[in-house]
């Protein structure tokens, strides 16, 4: 929720707006009208919230324990370690989003309307490098969005209060 709302505010800091609600709504309803209808936005928002909850559950039930087993320094469930795990999962979802979700789904849906250099249709480009008028800044903005999500997830995820080692 925090990341979703922050994405809508991105133009306030000169970044491209990341409106995942609308993108999900367009995918679900096939709505390609501009401006988007409020129904598409709301339904997309519900889908996006459910997405976020599912990814968070996967993190809590699978990713966090597995990272603790595979990487020894990530074994103690201290707040800092939980945050680092959240950042790792946010980074993984950034790669999945940029490499697969955006090019394969959003690129295919909005491909004809998004044009890159020379006004040629480019979808969203390989690894989100041609999102309408935006180049690689869309990729880094997507990273920023997923790090906001990862930080929130990592800070809220505190299943066991283990004996922590003070770091500062």
């Amino acid at each position, binding site marked *: 929720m925090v990341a979703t709302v922050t994405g809508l505010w991105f133009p306030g800091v000169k970044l491209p707006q990341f409106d995942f609600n609308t993108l999900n709504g367009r995918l679900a309803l096939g709505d390609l009208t501009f401006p988007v209808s409020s129904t598409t936005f709301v339904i997309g928002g519900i889908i996006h919230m459910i997405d976020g909850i599912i990814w968070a559950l996967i993190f809590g039930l699978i990713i966090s324990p597995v990272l603790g087993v595979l990487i020894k320094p990530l074994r103690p469930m*201290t707040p800092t370690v939980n945050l680092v795990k959240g950042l790792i999962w946010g980074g993984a979802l950034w790669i999945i989003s940029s490499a697969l979700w955006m090019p394969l789904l959003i690129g295919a849906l909005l491909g004809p309307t998004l044009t890159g250099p020379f006004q040629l249709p480019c979808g969203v480009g390989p690894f989100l490098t041609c999102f309408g008028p935006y180049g690689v800044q869309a990729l880094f903005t997507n990273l920023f969005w997923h790090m906001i999500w990862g*930080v929130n997830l990592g800070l809220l995820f505190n299943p066991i209060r283990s004996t922590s080692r003070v*770091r500062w």
Partner: protein
Amino acid sequence: MLRALAIYLGLLVLGIILAVAGWVLTPGAASFAFPGPINVTGQSLIALGLTFVVVAIGLLLAGAEERMTAAME
């Protein structure tokens, strides 16, 4: 422990510097009208800088929680 704090603060300062540099490089004012200002380098720096800022704030909060928990035990 002070070394970790210095690293977190360094990350925060680096992020602020990158974001400010990106803001200066990106022409025009912030705008919610699509597509708004476009500058690959400037906006990339803003995004990366703010990413560092968010991560640094997260680390500082997590470190503060650990410190307070240890103090209460």
